[in-house]
């Protein structure tokens, strides 16, 4: 029975994670400018792959592997905002302006 529970949860996590990733990809394609796309990539991507990793850890039914999967997830949480920040900052500093639909840019006033 436990097998079924694990399998079901894993399957759910798998599909959910994959869909998150897909939605992030769609966002990447659909959103109008670089900065809005960043929201999509840094969040949905992290969560999507985090769910999938978690699924993998869970499915192994091994605490060590689960711990490792979680450690990996935490690592992404540490790095994802930093890389987003670096890219956004660099882009903004190099003159990549916000898209036309943007309503405000306090940084440009500096």
């Amino acid at each position: 029975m436990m097998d079924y529970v694990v399998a079901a949860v894993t399957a759910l996590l798998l599909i959910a994670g994959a869909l998150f990733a897909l939605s992030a990809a769609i966002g990447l394609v659909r959103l109008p400018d670089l900065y809005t796309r960043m929201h999509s990539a840094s969040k949905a991507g992290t969560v999507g792959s985090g769910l999938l990793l978690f699924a993998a850890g869970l499915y192994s039914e091994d605490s060590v592997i689960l711990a490792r999967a979680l450690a990996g997830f935490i690592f992404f949480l540490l790095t994802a905002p930093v890389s987003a920040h670096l890219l956004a900052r660099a882009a903004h500093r190099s003159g990549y302006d916000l898209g036309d639909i943007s309503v405000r840019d306090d940084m440009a006033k500096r």
Partner: protein
Amino acid sequence: MITPAAIITAASSGALVILGLALLLTVWRVIAGPTLPDRILALDMLTGIAIGFIAVIAIKTGFSLYIDIAISLGLVGFLATVAFARFVLSRGSIKSPPSAAAAKGKAKKRRTGRKRQ
């Protein structure tokens, strides 16, 4: 009879297809751009999706060792993005693109002007 294995197989195959689709979309953004940061962002995302892809493979094949690869991939993707951001920054502003000739002149000046390196 639906076994747990069958559930997992079906779900993982489905996930792989979805992720494959996501990968292709992301690749499209890499190619399409339009700006350099867009491409970098898409590449960063590509590693993110690849991590998920690998996790699914780990489940599908039952080899949890793939998880470690996924972890290192996260690390690597981060490094790439940092380096690219660094690159974008050091290229200077795109609003006043220096001409190729100016760059050459600059390179020459640096060559001659440098005393000790």
